[in-house]
């Protein structure tokens, strides 16, 4: 089973991403959308936590949500894959199940 975890809350405001990472199985895919996309940026107070989980999960971030917030794709944590809405759909289609950490 591969699960796609969709996190849409800022890691600075809620612990959704932290909770997700503590319960997701190795090999899971984690997609950051909406206010969660700040979590994909390097040199933040949460970057080290995510870097520490890079070997366990595949991380994705929704490009349109980065652009809306003026966040530079060139300053992401290394290893993040930027996807559009089409890529979001592909992720949903290719995984067995989706969990949204609302």
């Amino acid at each position: 089973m591969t699960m796609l975890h969709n996190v849409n809350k800022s890691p600075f405001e809620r612990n959704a991403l932290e909770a997700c990472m503590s319960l997701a199985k190795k090999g899971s895919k984690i997609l950051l959308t909406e206010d969660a996309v700040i979590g994909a940026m390097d040199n933040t107070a949460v970057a080290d936590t995510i870097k520490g989980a890079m070997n366990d999960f595949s991380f994705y971030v929704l490009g349109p949500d980065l652009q809306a917030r003026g966040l530079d794709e060139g300053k992401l944590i290394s290893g993040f894959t930027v996807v559009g809405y089409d890529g979001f759909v592909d992720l949903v289609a290719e995984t067995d199940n989706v969990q949204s950490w609302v």
Partner: protein
Amino acid sequence: MAEPWEEEEGPVKKFMFVNRKAPYGTVYALESLEVVLISAAFDQDVTLVFTDDGVLQLKKGQSTDGIGMKNFSPTYRALEGYDVEKLFVDKESLDARGLTEDDLLVDVQVVSKAELADLMDEQEVVMSF
């Protein structure tokens, strides 16, 4: 002849708007801006604070075509025209998000939590968004 509401100047209070949410994920940032503009229209003494994820509201280069929402960030640059010129940004919150004053789209004063606490203490009305 002056309209009735123009004859007398109403009371002016010190209003502070504390912005703590990222834009677009929730409606708080936009709603705050609306109330700030209303307060300015009533010639109030307005101070804006951006702390926690609220600092993201002022990030340069916002482009919302991809999410189908209105990009309201240019409005922050128009605040000066409404005599809203007291904008304070929490340094600690910028640092935590890997941002600096250069990343922001308006001129602000970057301050410490202690300075924010003093500013907050001086207000007559504080509204949090």
